[in-house]
C-alpha cells in the first residue's frame, strides 16, 4: 500500500499524528467546549501542564486508546511503523494538542527526497478532482432561490395560522429583518472558522499556511480512506463493533479540516468521491462476476469500455475489492443514481485524474467499508415505516427531504418536528436548508401532535389569553415561572385542557425517542454518521433517543451532531451527561427566553428543574445559543428553523460566536 500512497512515509506519520491529536481533542470537546475553557491560554505558560498522571494505555475510555478501534486501523492503513503507534497515542492523549500540532504540520509540509515530484503531481491531480467534485455538488443558485421562495411562502402561511395579536407587529419586524439579512445562498461554512478566539486554531492555521492546498486535501483524502477501510482485526477487545463511517471519525476529520483551513464542503466532496470510487469498484467487481456482457447497455459498461474505470483498476492495481456479504442490490441501485455525478466529474478531470483519484481511495489491500456504509440505505430509513412498533407509537415514518438521496453522501441528517398543525409541517420547516447531507424528516404521531399544538394555539387566541397579553402579562409569566412565584389561579385553570393532551404528547415523544434509538442502533441509516435536529417535542424525541442509546452504546459512534430547538426537557431532572456522551461532535441547545408557550405547557418541571427550551443548560460540553431574537412564540420554530440553523453554522467545528447578534 505504501507504493500507491500519495504521501511519503514521513508525511503519513505526520498525518496519522495529526489525526490522533484531533481525535483526542474531539473527545475533550464532549465535556469542555473548545475555546471556552478559561485556562486554555494560561496552560500554555504553566510548566508541566501537559503531563497527565495517567498514560493513555491505562485508560480504555479514551478514543485514542487501542481498544476504541479508532486509531490503530488508521495507522495501519497509513502504513505507519507499528513501533511508532504507542508514541503517537501517548502524544495525542497526554498533552494538550496545541503543543504538538504545529510541529506535526511542519513535518507534514516537508518534502521527502525520493520521487516527491511524482507524488506532488499525483496530489495535484487529486486536488483537481476534488475541486471539480465540489463544484458539481454546489447547489445551483436558481434552485436554491426557488427553495428560499417556497420557504417564505410557507413562513407566511404559518404566520397566518399562528398569528396572535402581539406577535403581529413583531412578525413584521422580523420579516423585514430576514429580507435584509445577507443572502446566505453561499455556503455558510466559508472561512468563518478562522474567527474563533481559540488559540490552537489560529496557531494551527498559521502552520497550515506552509502546506500546499494539494498536500492538505491529499492528507484528508487518505485519512478518510483510512477511516473507511475495513482492515481492522476482528479483535474481541475492540469496543467498536460496527463497520462503516464512525461519527467520531467524521468529527475528527472536521476538526482536522479546520486546522488545515480546508472548507468543509471540500471535505464533503472528498467524502462523495471516496464513496463513488468505492461503489465504482464494487460495481466493477460485480460486473466481472456477471461476465460483463449481461448488461451491455448500462452507461457503466460504456465507461468501462472507454477505459476509464479500467484505467482506474490498473493504476496501482489496488482498487478496493468489496468483499462479499454486502448489500449488492443497494449498491447497484445507488450507482445508477450516482451516474450523473460521475458523469459530470469525468469530463472535467479526465480519465487519468479519475484514475488517480480512484487509486488514492484504493491505496489499501483490504476492502473499504463504503458499501457497508451505505448498507441498506435508501430502502433503510424510508422503508422503516414498517419497523417494529414499540409500545403504542402509532406513527413513525421517515420522509426524504432534499435531493441528496443516493448521491453518495456519507452522512445523514434526521429532522424532527414537534409543534405541527398538519402533516406538511413535518417536512416543510426543513426544506430550505442547504447542506450536503442526505436528509430525512421524521413524521411521528401526527394525530397527537396536531391535537396538542392546536389546543395550545386555540388557547392562545382565546379571549382570555388575548386579554392577558394586552396587559403584557405573558412576558412576565416566564419570569414568574422561573422564580417559582405563585401563578394567577385563573391562568392555571385555563391551561387544564392543554395539559392532558400535552401529557400524552410528552409520553409519545419519549416512546418515539426509543424507536429512533432502535433505528439508529440497527443501522438503518447505513452506518453513516447522523446529525439530529429537532424542535419542540421533536427535540425531546432526540434527547430521549440519546438517552436510550446510552443504555446500550458505550460511545458516540452513531451520532455526530445534535441540535435541540425549544426543547421541552428538564435541565436538572434528566441525564444530560449520558446524552452528551452519545454525541461525538457539537451538541447545541438553542433556547428562547420569551418562549412562554413552552414554559406554560411544561411548567410542572420548570418550577424547580429548569427547562432547556427557555434557558441555558449547565452541562459543560453543551453549547447554549440564545435565539430569542428569532423566536416570537413557540410556533415560530415552524418557519425560523432555517435562520437558526444558518446562524449555528453547523458545518464549522467550533461555534464562531459567543452571543448572538441582537437585532
Amino acid at each position: 500500500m505504501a507504493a500507491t500512497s500519495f504521501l511519503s512515509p514521513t508525511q503519513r506519520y505526520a498525518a496519522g499524528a495529526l489525526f490522533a491529536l484531533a481525535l483526542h481533542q474531539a473527545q475533550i470537546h464532549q465535556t469542555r467546549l473548545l475555546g471556552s475553557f478559561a485556562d486554555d491560554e494560561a496552560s500554555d505558560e504553566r510548566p508541566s501542564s501537559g503531563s497527565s498522571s495517567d498514560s493513555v494505555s491505562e485508560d480504555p475510555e479514551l478514543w485514542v486508546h487501542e481498544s476504541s478501534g479508532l486509531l490503530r486501523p488508521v495507522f495501519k492503513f497509513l502504513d505507519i511503523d507499528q513501533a511508532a503507534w504507542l508514541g503517537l497515542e501517548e502524544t495525542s492523549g497526554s498533552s494538550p494538542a496545541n503543543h504538538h500540532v504545529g510541529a506535526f504540520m511542519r513535518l507534514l509540509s516537508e518534502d521527502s527526497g525520493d520521487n516527491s515530484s511524482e507524488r506532488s503531481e499525483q496530489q495535484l491531480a487529486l486536488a483537481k478532482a476534488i475541486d471539480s467534485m465540489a463544484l458539481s455538488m454546489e447547489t445551483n443558485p436558481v434552485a436554491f432561490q426557488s427553495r428560499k421562495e417556497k420557504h417564505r411562502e410557507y413562513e407566511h402561511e404559518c404566520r397566518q395560522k399562528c398569528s396572535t395579536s402581539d406577535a403581529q407587529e413583531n412578525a413584521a419586524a422580523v420579516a423585514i429583518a430576514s429580507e435584509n439579512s445577507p443572502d446566505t445562498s453561499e455556503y455558510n461554512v466559508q472561512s468563518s472558522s478562522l474567527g474563533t478566539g481559540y488559540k490552537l486554531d489560529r496557531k494551527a492555521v498559521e502552520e497550515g499556511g506552509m502546506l500546499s492546498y494539494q498536500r492538505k486535501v491529499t492528507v484528508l483524502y487518505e485519512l478518510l480512506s483510512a477511516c473507511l477501510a475495513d482492515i481492522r482485526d476482528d479483535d474481541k477487545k475492540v469496543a467498536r463493533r460496527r463497520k462503516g463511517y464512525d461519527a467520531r471519525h467524521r468529527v475528527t476529520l472536521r476538526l482536522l479540516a479546520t486546522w488545515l483551513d480546508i472548507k468543509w464542503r471540500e471535505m464533503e466532496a472528498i467524502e462523495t468521491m471516496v464513496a463513488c470510487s468505492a461503489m465504482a469498484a464494487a460495481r466493477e467487481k460485480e460486473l466481472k462476476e456477471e461476465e460483463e456482457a449481461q448488461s451491455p447497455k448500462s452507461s457503466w459498461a460504456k465507461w468501462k469500455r472507454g477505459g476509464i474505470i479500467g484505467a482506474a483498476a490498473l493504476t496501482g492495481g489496488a482498487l478496493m475489492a468489496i468483499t462479499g456479504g454486502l448489500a449488492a442490490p443497494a449498491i447497484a441501485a445507488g450507482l445508477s443514481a450516482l451516474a450523473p455525478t460521475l458523469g459530470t466529474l469525468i469530463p472535467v478531470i479526465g480519465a487519468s485524474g479519475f484514475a488517480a483519484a480512484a487509486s488514492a481511495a484504493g491505496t489499501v489491500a483490504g476492502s473499504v467499508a463504503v458499501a457497508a456504509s451505505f448498507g441498506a440505505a435508501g430502502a433503510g430509513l424510508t422503508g422503516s415505516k414498517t419497523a417494529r412498533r414499540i409500545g403504542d407509537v402509532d406513527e413513525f415514518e421517515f420522509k426524504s427531504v432534499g435531493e441528496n438521496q443516493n448521491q453518495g453522501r456519507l452522512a445523514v441528517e434526521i429532522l424532527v418536528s414537534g409543534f405541527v398543525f398538519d402533516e406538511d409541517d413535518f417536512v416543510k420547516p426543513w426544506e430550505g436548508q442547504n447542506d450536503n447531507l442526505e436528509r430525512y424528516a421524521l413524521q411521528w404521531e401526527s394525530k397527537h401532535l396536531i391535537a396538542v399544538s392546536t389546543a395550545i394555539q386555540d388557547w392562545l387566541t382565546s379571549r382570555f389569553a388575548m386579554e392577558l397579553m394586552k396587559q403584557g402579562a405573558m412576558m412576565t409569566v416566564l419570569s414568574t415561572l422561573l422564580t417559582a412565584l405563585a401563578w394567577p389561579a385563573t391562568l392555571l385553570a385555563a391551561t387544564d385542557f392543554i395539559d392532558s393532551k400535552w401529557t400524552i404528547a410528552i409520553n409519545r415523544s419519549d416512546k418515539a425517542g426509543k424507536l429512533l434509538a432502535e433505528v439508529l442502533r440497527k443501522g438503518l441509516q447505513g452506518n453513516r454518521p447522523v446529525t439530529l435536529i429537532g424542535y419542540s417535542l421533536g427535540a425531546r424525541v432526540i434527547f430521549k433517543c440519546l438517552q436510550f442509546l446510552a443504555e446500550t452504546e458505550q460511545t458516540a459512534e452513531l451520532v455526530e451532531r445534535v441540535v435541540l430547538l425549544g426543547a421541552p426537557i428538564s435541565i436538572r431532572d434528566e441525564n444530560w451527561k449520558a446524552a452528551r456522551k452519545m454525541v461525538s461532535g457539537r451538541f447545541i441547545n438553542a433556547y428562547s427566553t420569551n418562549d412562554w408557550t413552552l414554559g406554560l405547557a411544561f411548567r410542572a418541571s420548570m418550577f424547580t428543574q429548569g427547562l432547556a427550551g427557555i434557558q441555558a443548560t449547565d452541562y459543560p460540553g453543551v453549547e447554549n445559543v440564545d435565539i430569542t431574537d428569532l423566536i416570537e412564540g413557540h410556533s415560530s420554530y415552524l418557519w425560523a428553523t432555517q435562520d437558526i440553523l444558518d446562524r449555528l453554522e453547523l458545518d464549522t467545528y467550533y461555534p464562531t460566536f459567543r452571543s448572538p447578534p441582537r437585532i
Partner: protein
Amino acid sequence: MEVSSSQPEFDYLFKLLLIGDSGVGKSSLLLSFTSDTFEDLSPTIGVDFKIKYVTVGGKKLKLAIWDTAGQERFRTLTSSYYRGAQGIIMVYDVTRRETFTNLADIWAKEIDLYSTNQDCIKMLVGNKVDKESERVVSKKEGIDFAREYGCLFLECSAKTRINVEQCFEELVLKILETPSLLAEGSAGVKKNIFKQKPPETSAATSSCCSW
C-alpha cells in the same frame, strides 16, 4: 466513566526525555532499562514512549519516558516534548565524536530553548562503552562537559547493561531532592481532564451530572 482508585499505585510520576543524535543508542538504552533486553533496533520514527515503575529511596515511582528520534527530519517534532519534562537525558556515542560535539552545538541549545522547567535535571550519558577499543571521546571530556553545563554524568552500555539502571536511578534521585519537581510529579495532581469533574458553570448543577 471508569473511576480510578483513590489510592494511586505510585507516589510520584516523572516525565523523562531522551535526546541525542541518531544512532547513539537512545532506544536501546531505554529498552535495556525497561525490559532488560538488547537488540538491533531500526531508527525511531518520531517519538516512542515507555512506562517503567521503580522504587527509589522508598518511594514508588512511575516513570513516563519519551524516546525521541535523533534523525534530522524529526527534529521539528521533538521540540514539543521538552515541555514539562522533569528529567532530560542527553545521550552520545563514545565511539563517534560528532555525536558528542553536537551536544553543545545542538542539543544543549534545544534544552535552553524549549524546556519549560527551570529546575529540570539534566543528565549526560556516554553510551557504547562496551566498544572500548573504538572509543574516541574520553571520560574526562564527558566530565568536563557535564561540569560546564551543570548536569549529571555517567558512561554506560545498553548492550552489556553496565550502568544502565544507575543512570536512571541517579537522575530520579536528583529529581526527588528537588522540591519544585517533586510537587509537579506528585500523584495527587491529576491532570487528566476525563478524570476530573468537569468544570461546573453553576453550583446547582451537580445533581444532573452525578449519575
